[in-house]
């Protein structure tokens, strides 16, 4: 499996990662060799095998629907890069319409 430089850009976009233009060839090379390694999985026959979700077949534990956590909004938001009045501030999402 060979990953091209445009594949790298596409994957980086899906992962919302900015990567330096100068690093793209190296990522293409590294991802190609990692996927080449991963390709060796195909030599293992897995017909009729059920995928494993948990080694001990544990299932999600349920609990009573009771309130257990106090409201810690202020504490959680105190470490935000930008917050105001209980809201996280981010750059404008909706573009202004042309007049």
């Amino acid at each position, binding site marked *: 499996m060979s*990953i091209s430089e445009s*594949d*790298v850009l596409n*994957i*980086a976009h*899906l*992962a*919302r*990662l*900015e*990567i330096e233009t100068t*690093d793209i060839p190296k*990522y293409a090379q*590294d*991802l190609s*060799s*990692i*996927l080449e*390694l*991963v*390709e*060796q*999985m*195909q*030599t*293992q026959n*897995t017909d009729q*095998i*059920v*995928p*494993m*979700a*948990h*080694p*001990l077949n*544990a299932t*999600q*534990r349920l*609990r009573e629907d009771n309130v257990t956590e106090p409201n*810690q909004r202020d*504490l*959680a938001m*105190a*470490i*935000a*890069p*930008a917050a105001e009045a209980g809201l*996280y501030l*981010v*750059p*404008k*999402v909706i573009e202004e319409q042309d007049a």
Partner: protein
Amino acid sequence: MHTKSVAELATDLGSKKISSVELTQHFLKRIQQHDNDLNSFITVCEERALADAKAADEMRQQGKAGPLTGIPMAQKDIFCTKGIKTTCASKILSNFVAPYDATVVERCQQAGLVMLGKTNMDEFAMGSTNENSYYGAVKNPWDQTCVTGGSSGGSAAAVAAGLTPLATGTDTGGSIRQPSALCNLTGIKPTYGRVSRYGMIAYASSLDQGGPMGRSAHDIALLLQTMAGFDPKDSTSIEREVPDYPATLEAKLDGLRIGLPKEYFATGLDANVANVIDQCAKNLEKLGAKLLEIALPTTASHVPTYYVIAPAEASSNLSRYDGARYGMRCEDPKNLEDMYKRSRGEGFGAEVKRRIMVGTYALSAGYYDAYYLKAQKIRRLICDDFNNAFKEVDVILGPTYPTTAFKIGEKLQDPVSLYLADIYTIAVNLAGLPALSMPAGFNKGLPIGAQLIGNYFTEAQLLNVAHQYQQATDWHHKLAEGY
């Protein structure tokens, strides 16, 4: 004091020969002396440590001391600590102060352990050299030009150099066992679900597990006792009683069936390491164990399977670092997408980006069945391999790592060669089993670790075997020169 075992230190504290404050000051001084060279700590929390120590001395005064009250320790910087920076060795979390404690941290504090600081690691626990840290590589006390292994490399170096008697680590594909092997320590990765993951920053959630690192099986048995147990805050924590680990250390090994997987002694294993593991097996045989050859036929698929599942889970887990809610945000974002991309692009290091991209690719439309689903199927076959083996044997013995520590920088340009070297450690995580690495010998002055793999929830047995081995050998007593 720093050459004493944890049990000896506990006895000294119990008999008031020394106070926890004095002991803590001793280790803080050693950190000051040696850590400029080693770089094993990201944060040293002197004030907190001395306050913990004072509290521990008071606990003892009031007759409330437990077995580890007053003993200093270090936490891997992946465990959230309220009020003290938790960076995961990443630039993106370089300013992160968690608003809560991880369950492991909370348990250690309740036991009266003293937190000296937070140890260096590979960024987000991704790596096996500790070179992937925003805070720089950690140096191996046995040879400062060599890597410590990783990802719990800071914890390994700190214990090996006597800067702390104990440390925590986490193990997703070998991150406790491999640095333990490369730094002459004993470290155990418990059964998946044995130790709470609450507050332990996630890398690959179905594989991650915390555990103790120290000099001997006895030392880490004491810390595991504190760390292990059910936690309702972790949805994958297992509700099952924790046995008394130190209580069974003295059991004899007569009749113990030890399996040697032939695939673990094949091409790729350094001949000197192979000799040391053979010798270790013979020593265990002398102690009453029976050696049997076993097969783990899926071995060739272990590395490829791991490098789909771990990156896939990582790409999903690390999507939370968005520059919006906590952690680093890039300067002057032009719009929302620019904020995401640049915060993540500037905040993550090269290896983390590589794994996020591999995972993103493996999970992207059209590739899910060929990669992730295929890997989850092989994972069941790997479990079957071990289940079959444990019908014949009680524990499995093999090398922890194919070589001794190598030079810092030597393998930086070739990630795949490093991935391939994880061959002996990663199947354990894929199957959720417990495994321990213990000192077994040296080659050219560098330590070699032997790995014991057990069936589910047999931590007590692994610690027992390691302890018996350590009663008959003195590899674990050997200390790096200059410390």
